């Protein structure tokens, strides 16, 4: 039983190696192989076939729609995140934890349910169904519905990064700015924002990745109208179901690359500005 090495805090080398093997094996099997497959399948018929996918008008429409949705969703959620964080972190009022729980709500809801609720409100048999038809407006099965569903699913991301950080920072600096004569907006722009810039960027990254990749919620509200209401993930589904494997995986590879870039930037941010982020393993 002699462990004369004196290092009490480690397992035997054999045990360690075994555990490392198990961990790497499990990760490779369940996490890494799907990622690899995306690119293998995308280039299965060569680079030419891969590139041709992006010349297809439906694919381009999907890409365009995805970008549009993200372009609306992310800024909207940033404004929301800043407003919510400002109210929660700098002021004292009852019901704060309730408010924070509500902000976290979308994380506990299945994306399909998220889509469902909008159908229930704006769908043909929904709450406003008749009114919408009468005014010749379409929310579900059209772009507005997609935007709404995407906002639902992604708005917590920015807020969740900002709120704990701003709570920790308190209001001393803003108060100091006020005593020096700055107006509220000026204090916000020159004191608050710079203090949270990395957390804001982090939140934007996550929000954007999710907005572009959301599938379940958008699938329910979109109506799958080719060329009109298909985002990239939906187009991937259509192509895959048509056995157009290369096209499906080519678009999927686009999204996967976005995921990798997001992960890379995220890791970089955590590494460089970890203390400014105050992330505690929450998602």
């Amino acid at each position, binding site marked *: 039983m002699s*462990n004369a090495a004196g290092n009490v805090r*480690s397992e035997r080398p054999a045990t*360690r190696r075994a*555990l*490392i093997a198990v*961990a*790497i094996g*499990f*990760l490779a099997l*369940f*996490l*890494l192989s*799907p*990622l690899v*497959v995306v690119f293998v399948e995308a280039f299965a018929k060569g680079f030419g076939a891969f590139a041709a996918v992006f010349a297809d008008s439906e694919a381009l429409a999907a890409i365009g729609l995805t970008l549009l949705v993200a372009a609306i969703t992310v800024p909207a959620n940033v404004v*929301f995140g800043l*407003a*919510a964080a*400002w*109210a929660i972190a700098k*002021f*004292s*009022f009852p019901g704060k934890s309730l*408010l924070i729980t*509500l902000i976290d*709500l979308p994380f*506990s*809801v*299945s*994306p*399909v*349910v998220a889509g*469902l609720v909008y*159908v*229930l*409100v704006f*769908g*043909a048999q*929904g709450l406003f169904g008749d009114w919408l038809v009468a005014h010749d407006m379409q929310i579900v099965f059209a772009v507005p519905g997609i935007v709404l569903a995407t906002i*639902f699913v992604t*708005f917590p991301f920015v807020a969740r990064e900002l709120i704990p950080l701003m709570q920790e920072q308190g*209001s001393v600096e803003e*108060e100091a700015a006020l005593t020096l004569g700055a107006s*509220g907006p000026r204090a916000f722009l020159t004191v608050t924002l710079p203090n949270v810039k990395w957390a804001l960027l982090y939140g934007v990254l996550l929000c954007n990745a999710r907005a572009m*990749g959301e*599938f*379940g919620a958008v*699938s329910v509200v979109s109506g799958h109208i080719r060329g009109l209401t298909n985002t990239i*993930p939906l187009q991937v*589904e259509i192509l*895959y179901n048509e056995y157009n*494997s290369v096209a499906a*995986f080519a678009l*999927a590879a686009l*999204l996967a690359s976005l*995921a990798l870039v997001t*992960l890379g930037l*995220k890791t970089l941010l955590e590494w460089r500005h970890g203390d400014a982020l105050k992330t505690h*393993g929450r*998602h």
Partner: protein
Amino acid sequence: MTLSPAAKAPWRFKAASVLPGFGPAFGFTLLYLSLVVLFPLSVLVWRASGLGFSGLYQVATEPRVAAGLSTTFTISFAAAVIDAVFGLIVAWVLTRYEFPGRGLLDAAVDLPFALPTAVAGISLASLYGPNGFFGAPLAALGIKVAFTRLGILVALIFVGLPFIVRTVQPILLELEPELEEAAATLGASRARTIWRVMLPPLAPAVLTGFALAFARAVGEYGSVIFIAGNIAYVSEIAPLLIVVKLEQYDYAGATGIATIMLAISFAALLAINLVQAWSRKRFGHV
């Protein structure tokens, strides 16, 4: 000059503060929340209440729905259990050992969070399909993964793993080295030290991760529907059934299933909070 006695301050919603902008910020926040979340969700609740318990029961006991719910909950549970065991090992290895590629692997744990569900879905379907890289050799062994419940299990394992790893890692990092040293001075072998001194404090984190993984798995859609094959009574998941009902304009049925799923998710999250609160009270740490 006389000073009148101080009048009792009137109750204010927000404590007095010199910082401006509370009104607009709070107002906008509430407005956004209401429009995007609260109002639509309340419509769901209203619809659900229209069903009543009897209506819910009717939906839940339709044979196809019952099968779908059972499939969803049992496989989500199994996946969360497997994730708990292996997630613990992965967290342990990533936190306590040094080896080449560790940083990369650590970043890779976040893949299921970052990768869009549809992408994961078609990849898994391809991997485990009859001609897939894993599917083919497994088929030769007589094991079919795609279009079976096993496929759903694989997909949900993928989806839930980061929850366990990321909740356990910070706790593991904070574990005082002195605890292990103390156990050693008291004569405990390494195995006993790990089993009795290091793992118990990790239990609340593992439980939390488990509940999060379970709740996520129950609602998962995109990663699962491709590999599952969606064979009625065999490999249909509850979220898919909601979509099916919607396509049939059976809003009531869709609402019913959604309500049941929401109830289970909330119960899981409530359980997490209770576990955490209890453990904090008993043991004095998170």
